[in-house]
């Protein structure tokens, strides 16, 4: 466990906490970007360069911008009068703490059997491309279909309906 890992972990956890806890929705979106960047740095730290840069491109570049657009379109940045939390926030907190306790317990009690290869994986982007076009070509096509369907679906759902058009 290096110092770099602790710094990146602190950055992403702080960003995630801020994204969930802040009152102003725009600030939440910005903190979410910090959390995404922390996870991307962690991918790079794990020698997964392709996944790290894909994370930066897709999450920081697209999803965060989409979230900011949605916030501005719905005027969600105004803090509601009756608080930002739903009716019973304590129940949600207890469920989340319970999930974290179970996951942490499971991780800490399985340390002995977890794999710990020390050699760095020698994987280039060319290998990933070859795998995507060879062994994983069917999942790739399905994902392409899914993305097309999601794109069309999102446009249709968010399209402005004229009066009496349908």
């Amino acid at each position: 466990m290096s110092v770099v890992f602790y710094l990146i972990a602190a950055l992403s956890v702080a960003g995630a906490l801020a994204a969930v806890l802040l009152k102003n929705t725009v600030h939440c979106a910005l903190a979410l970007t910090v959390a995404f960047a922390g996870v991307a740095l962690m991918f790079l730290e794990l020698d997964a360069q392709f996944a790290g840069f894909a994370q930066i491109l897709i999450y920081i570049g697209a999803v965060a911008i989409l979230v900011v657009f949605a916030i501005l379109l719905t005027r969600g940045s105004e803090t509601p009068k009756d608080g930002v939390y739903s009716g019973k926030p304590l129940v949600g907190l207890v469920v989340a703490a319970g999930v974290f306790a179970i996951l942490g317990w499971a991780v800490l009690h399985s340390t002995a059997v977890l794999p710990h290869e020390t050699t760095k994986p020698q994987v280039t982007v060319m290998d990933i491309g070859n795998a995507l076009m060879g062994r994983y070509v069917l999942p790739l096509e399905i994902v392409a279909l899914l993305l097309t369907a999601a794109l069309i679906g999102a446009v249709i759902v968010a399209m402005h309906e004229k009066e009496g058009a349908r």
Partner: protein
Amino acid sequence: MNPLTGYLLVAALLFAIGLAGALTRRNAILVLIGIELMLNAANLNLIAFWRYGPHPEALTGMMFAIFSIAVAAAEAAVGLGLVIAIHRHTHTTDLDAMNRMKG
């Protein structure tokens, strides 16, 4: 300490934070943000197991994470489109106020 343990604990913490956000926040967009955090935590687990597991050259964990990122992008687009459509209809993004399926 096994280096994988640290990554798994951070992923568990991120997942729990995202779950808490999705369960406690009132704004629908903030719930989507919580779901994105949970998906990121799952991706972190996949990549960490790929890095420290045997046979990283088979690329299974990496491929799983890449496809998961693509599906998460589709989910974000459709989810935010739904939020915008509901906001246009009811002029609110408050989930506690959305208690009817009828338009």
